[in-house]
């Protein structure tokens, strides 16, 4: 239930916005107005959402879809207008405003692949121009993305959009999480970046859903979730990604894995006219890969097999000749198995502003069905961003986002009653206990579809940021915020249902609070015209508390009464954890002629999860950025090579990763024991602890260049990085003989990731009628465990029971890489066969990495006649392997795979197909990730209806996959889900019946008034 306080806040915000949103200025003294148009330089295509500001004032506007803007109440006199838009070079125009008159200003923006003037968030007060920042910052223009495609969650926002950002989907089930890794796995325990929305740190843990793995609440593996995906992409203006310690030093003790900054949409002061946007999207989710065909070869033994009553165990083989192969594809055959899931999305937003305020309000309703009948995700989102500028020196922003999410998950992964597992393990021709089970391995759709696992989550994120600039040389920013989420997860099996036939109900109510308090100050001093010194300092306090109540009831009398109190047996539990962190920093930046920037900083942190014998930790950074193309002596050279701008940059920095809460303390836990017919209290060993525990420390050096050529028609950003993580938080499992079944964290060892990121943009065709833009993002990453404690120089990954021993952390190799024992051969070079499998060597050898080492994405956009746009995104991930457990299970356990039932099978082939390591496969793939066509109806047809823009869009996701991998989808992994859930192990990957990515087709109508 959404709390009363939150409702009051929302109501207050709504009333405030409504009351303060006049469409006309109340101030009209000694002023004029400015109107104008912004078009793209080559195609003359109007550019929407360009931010126009009157420099030195708080006045401004956003361009409409036809590129026009108007700013009222501009004080008379000469005024400088500045136009900014992600992807374009900022441009200034000087206009003279006369009393009561309307001046005009036309902008012709040039695309800028390097965008050196773009403002980015650095952790200090105020945004900084990108050219001053010594490290690479990837910016994703989400507003533009959501304008022309159906984007449902943050995973889709980040997928294949920026080099060095690897998104690995765990399953294709709606509402489930992806793994997001920046510049490779560096930690053995936590690789998830920290995420901020408008400066407020948010929770990205799972939604505390019950893992849908069957048998009530038991946790095997299974699909899980991430609170990150609860964010509504339509509310996001842009996303900035800081990929490593060199960039994230100022974010301190938890930022070694990188930082993702989400900037939501805002209104613009002075816009003075409400812009409404309404969008409706309809589509379907379809099973996008081949289905599974099962086989049975009728042998004489099968034909003869009967039970005690003389009933044939293989009726499908009766009357068939020996050697007849039966086949069946239950997923395809059974109409109750799958559907084309509906995708529905409706959103409306308004943004505007007056002289002293601006606002953005939005509402969004999403409904996404999976291909299984009990799979769906529903989301309702409301956002209000309000900015008040009471006096020139102060602006106060209040950002409020509320989401309500209702997720239903099907049984997944290696769950015995999961439909995918059942489909893969069907035995054609086998006797079944009920007709509906025919061809299915363990459960048929009519039963599997009754599984009811729901998670309802409310999330409220409130942040307020106050900028106070008392002097032109001194800026202050204070951000205070809270990210609060409250959920109710429920599993219900009414008596007779599939999961727990006796009837079972479980409810869990997690509540997560994240608090952020962040102060930053900037002092600017210009001792000479050429030299500018910027001193920044700040302090951050973050805190997270997680509380959970759990209640279960087993044995329900009937499906009519399903409260826990009515269950025969009931149980309850609660949990609580928290961490608190305090950090301080100081930074000095020297700017020389606005083209050479030297930055140095240090940050200190203390954290509640550090050991009692460890105090604060300090992280330094330094960086150099040189805009060489601005160097007078070099301008001729760059002009000769048609370079618009050319920047070299290098950065070095450190950042940390705090241990999980309570890792430092040795504890025992309460337990219970049966004593006769009674139950008494008892204790169990808990965590072994480590009082010397400190954060792991990431250190990174990166160097790169940004260059733009031929008036922005071509650009390149290239970055080399070398990231080391030291003092790794290593769960050093105590041998069981110690009696502690725990793996206390030790600061041991070092990992290294080094690689290259490349982003090439270009406009190969630039005509008045046709424009072709392309962007190629590529990254290559080499990952290695450099050193570790001598005890664990070679250790199989904990929890990887599907592929025991295959994935290992071995010094000198990538984290979680695959190793197998190769088959033994006799003196004649023939395989040795034992137990119908290949006899293997006793030692294992390296095969390959478990996560992609090469990523490439190619985005093409073709614009025809300004209004028709085609875009396509190809996504390649490669250089890695995946264990195809599903196929091994089918061949080894069920013998229903195609390999064993087609063609001539001899003993050697049979042994090969029954050997686990045979199913370790290359997992390189290329996906046609997104294809879209959008058409904007010319304004001359729509303006009579006061429609500013009317756009139709057709989008397809995951249209096709090219791969040699023989499983359903090389991208998904049953174990990735576990990883996300625990936020711990690196790269446990196994294709153990996860749902493949679905193919989504959708149609959208977008109206702007």
């Amino acid at each position, binding site marked *: 239930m959404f709390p009363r306080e939150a409702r009051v806040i929302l109501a207050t915000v709504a009333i405030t916005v409504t009351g303060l949103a006049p469409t006309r200025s109340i101030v009209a003294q000694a002023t004029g107005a400015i109107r104008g148009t912004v078009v793209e330089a080559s195609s003359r295509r109007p550019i929407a959402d360009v931010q126009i500001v009157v420099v030195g004032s708080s006045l401004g506007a956003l361009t409409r879809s036809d590129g026009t803007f108007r700013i009222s109440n501009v004080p008379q006199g000469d005024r400088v207008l500045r136009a900014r838009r992600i992807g374009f070079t900022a441009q200034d125009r000087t206009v003279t405003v006369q009393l009561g008159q309307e001046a005009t200003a036309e902008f012709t923006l040039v695309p800028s692949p390097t965008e050196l003037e773009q403002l980015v968030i650095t952790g200090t007060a105020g945004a900084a121009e990108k050219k001053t920042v010594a490290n690479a910052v990837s910016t994703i223009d989400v507003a533009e993305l959501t304008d022309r495609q159906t984007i449902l969650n943050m995973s889709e926002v980040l997928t294949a959009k920026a080099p060095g950002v690897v998104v690995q989907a765990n399953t294709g089930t709606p509402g489930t999480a992806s793994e997001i890794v920046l510049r490779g796995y560096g930690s053995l325990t936590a690789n998830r970046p920290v995420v901020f929305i408008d400066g407020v740190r948010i929770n990205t843990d799972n939604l505390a859903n019950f893992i849908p793995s069957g048998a009530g609440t038991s946790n095997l593996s299974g699909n899980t979730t991430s609170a990150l995906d609860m964010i509504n992409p339509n509310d996001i203006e842009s996303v900035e990604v800081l990929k490593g310690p060199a960039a994230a030093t100022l974010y301190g003790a938890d930022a070694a894995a990188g930082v993702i900054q989400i900037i939501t949409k805002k209104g613009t002061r002075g816009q003075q006219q409400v812009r409404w946007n309404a969008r409706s999207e309809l589509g379907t989710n379809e099973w996008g890969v081949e289905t599974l065909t099962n086989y049975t070869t009728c042998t004489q033994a099968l034909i003869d097999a009967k039970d005690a009553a003389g009933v044939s165990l293989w009726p499908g083989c009766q009357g068939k000749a020996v050697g007849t192969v039966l086949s069946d594809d239950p997923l395809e055959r059974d109409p109750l198995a799958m559907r084309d899931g509906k995708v529905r999305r409706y959103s409306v937003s308004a943004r505007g502003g007056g002289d002293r305020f601006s606002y953005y309000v939005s509402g969004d309703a999403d409904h996404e069905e999976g291909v299984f009948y009990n799979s769906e995700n529903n989301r309702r989102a409301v956002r209000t961003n309000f900015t008040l500028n009471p006096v020139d020196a102060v602006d106060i922003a209040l950002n409020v986002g509320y989401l309500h999410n209702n997720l239903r998950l099907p049984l997944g992964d290696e769950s015995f009653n999961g439909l995918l597992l059942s489909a893969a393990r069907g035995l054609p021709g086998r006797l079944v206990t009920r007709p509906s089970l025919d061809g299915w391995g363990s459960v048929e759709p009519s039963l599997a579809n009754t599984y009811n696992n729901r998670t309802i989550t409310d999330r409220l994120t409130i942040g307020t940021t106050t900028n106070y600039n008392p002097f032109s040389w001194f800026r202050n920013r204070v951000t205070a915020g809270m990210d609060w989420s409250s959920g109710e997860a429920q599993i219900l099996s009414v008596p007779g249902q599939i999961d727990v036939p006796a009837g079972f109900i479980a409810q869990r109510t997690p509540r997560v609070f994240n608090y952020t308090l962040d102060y930053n100050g900037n002092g600017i001093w210009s001792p000479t015209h050429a030299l500018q010194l910027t001193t920044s300092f700040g302090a951050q306090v973050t805190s997270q508390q997680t509380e959970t109540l759990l209640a279960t009831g087993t044995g329900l009398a009937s499906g009519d009464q399903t409260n826990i109190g009515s269950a025969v047996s009931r149980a309850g539990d609660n949990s609580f954890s928290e961490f*608190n962190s305090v950090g301080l920093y100081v930074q000095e930046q020297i700017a020389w002629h606005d083209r050479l920037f030297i930055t140095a900083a240090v940050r200190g942190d203390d954290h509640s999860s550090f050991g009692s014998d460890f105090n604060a930790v300090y992280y330094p950074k330094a960086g150099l950025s040189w805009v060489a193309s601005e160097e007078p002596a070099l301008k001729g050279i760059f002009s000769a090579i048609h370079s618009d701008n050319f920047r070299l940059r290098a950065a070095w920095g450190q950042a940390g990763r705090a241990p999980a809460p309570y890792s430092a303390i040795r504890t025992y836990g309460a337990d*219970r024991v049966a004593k006769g017919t009674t139950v008494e209290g008892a204790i169990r060993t*808990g965590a072994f602890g480590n009082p010397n525990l400190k954060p792991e420390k990431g250190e990174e050096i990166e160097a790169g260049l940004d260059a733009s050529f031929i008036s922005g028609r071509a650009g390149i950003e290239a970055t080399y990085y070398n990231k080391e993580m030291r003092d790794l938080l290593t769960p050093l499992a105590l041998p069981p003989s110690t009696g502690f079944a725990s793996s206390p964290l030790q600061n041991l060892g070092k990992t290294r990731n080094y690689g290259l990121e490349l982003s090439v943009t270009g406009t190969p065709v630039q005509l008045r009628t046709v424009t072709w833009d392309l962007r190629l993002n590529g990254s290559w990453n080499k990952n290695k465990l450099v050193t570790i404690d001598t005890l664990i120089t070679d250790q199989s990954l904990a929890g990887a029971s599907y592929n025991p021993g295959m994935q290992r952390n071995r010094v000198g190799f990538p984290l979680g890489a695959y190793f197998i024992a190769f088959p033994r051969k006799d003196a004649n070079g023939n395989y040795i066969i034992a137990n119908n499998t290949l006899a293997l060597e006793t030692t294992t050898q390296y095969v390959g990495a478990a996560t992609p080492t090469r990523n490439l994405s190619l985005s093409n956009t073709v614009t025809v006649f300004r209004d028709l746009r085609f875009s396509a995104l190809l996504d390649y991930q490669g250089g890695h392997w995946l264990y195809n457990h599903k196929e091994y299970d089918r061949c080894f356990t069920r013998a229903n795979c195609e390999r064993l039932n087609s063609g001539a099978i001899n003993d050697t082939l049979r042994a090969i197909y029954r050997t686990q390591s045979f199913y370790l496969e290359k997992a390189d793939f290329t996906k046609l990730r997104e294809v879209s066509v959008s058409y904007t109806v010319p304004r001359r047809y729509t303006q009579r209806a006061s429609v500013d823009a009317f756009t139709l869009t057709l989008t397809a996701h995951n249209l096709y996959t090219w791969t040699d991998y023989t499983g359903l989808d090389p991208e998904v992994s049953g174990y990735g889900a576990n990883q996300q859930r625990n936020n711990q192990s690196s790269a446990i990957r196994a294709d153990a019946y996860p749902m493949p990515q679905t193919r989504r087709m959708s149609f959208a109508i977008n109206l702007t008034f």
Partner: protein
Amino acid sequence: MTNRPAPRVRALALAAAIVIPAASAGCKDFLTAQNPAAIPAERLDDTSFFNLVVNGVVGELQPTWPLVAYYSGVFTDELRNHHVFSEEILYDRRDIQPANGTHSLWYTAMQRSRALADDAALRFKRILGDSANHDLRTARVYAYAGYSLILLAETECSAPLSFGDTLYSRPYTPAELFAFAAARFDSTIKIAAAAKAAATAGPPSTLRTAVMNGADSLRNLAYVGAARAFLGAGDKAKAIEYARLVQPIASNNFEFRIYFNDNLATSRLNNPLRDRMSGGAGLTSASVSGTRFQFLDDARVPVPLNAQGQPQAEVATGGSWIVPNSPPSYSTFDATKTGADFSLGGYMRLASLLEAQYIIAEAEGPTAENVAFIESRRTAFPSSTAAAVTTASNFIDNLRDQRRRDFYLDGHRMGDLRRYRDQYNVTTGIHSWETGSMYGTTTQFSSTMCWPLNSSEINNNPNVPKS
């Protein structure tokens, strides 16, 4: 005017003097996270926690024993496994590798049970001093340590043990583990005797009676345990010596029980065999093994019968396997051939006078008394497949046959098969490890006869050889 800044500076200094220490103190508090779900280790030295510690020791062994009984039953010839997880299937094949995650759970449980018991004994002696030597709590934790060691000795090929501050030890052989177990049982016997003597000297009271009865029970538990340990180690004389010390306590019998509870709040309280054997759809994972136990036609190995009253042939479809019902070591045993389901609650037999008698019989051989005992077991539960009338010549065969029935699925079979092979060189027949193809398949049984250390022990214990 010129003096004005000074008070401001002083005021600022005063404010700073107040604010900075306050902020520091506040910061320190802020950085101390609450943890309501844990007991700090040092609190356990408080004697008010000692009963909880003893309960913890009991609570470790109680769920561990039946789980080891189950998996050792699958590993030997008592059960076969239909679980979908491939690593569980490997128990059937006797192909347990260190990385087998399922095995890791039981290995860890056995070690945890042993270590917590030993740790409790050390703690009691450290805190209580000499009074620990006549405190039944100390006697009890020693006895539980002993039984945990018996589990390790009978199932594992070898096992390291931590003692006190020594975290890492070399792997000990089964013979050494049996010796450690015997030493624990000697401690129990000694302390229980001292506790009883002290109680006897005191004035009559309910507490005194409870202590005296408890001491007798614990001593019997230790006698059976020591006899079992010496039998496993091949010291028959010692085995007989300790087994003969077991005294009937009530109804001319002695049984020491492990208890379960049907409260679902903590699954560790439940009898785990209920879900694995009689739990219903989706949970059933075992059936009676092949020809060795499926058609025994003995109430001690009860299975659901078909409409004709005969043991059913197995049908491995939709979960319709022939799972055994509750055998004699469990409270749910109903002495019929069809039997009754396991339940979540109830108890199982850990040690008994019956076992002591079997130990004496095996160690002593076919004396008239022992032949009569085995014959009484042969006729205790009429069966068409029971062995022939017991004589001196078929004594050992009958003993083994009756023993496998009386102790069906309670954690004896694996130790028995290992002992028969190691001490009697039994390599063929129903009391040997199975060989050849499994249950009509072409898959061969592996040749292993004990469980390896798990990967965690191998990888993380520097004193365990890595090859």
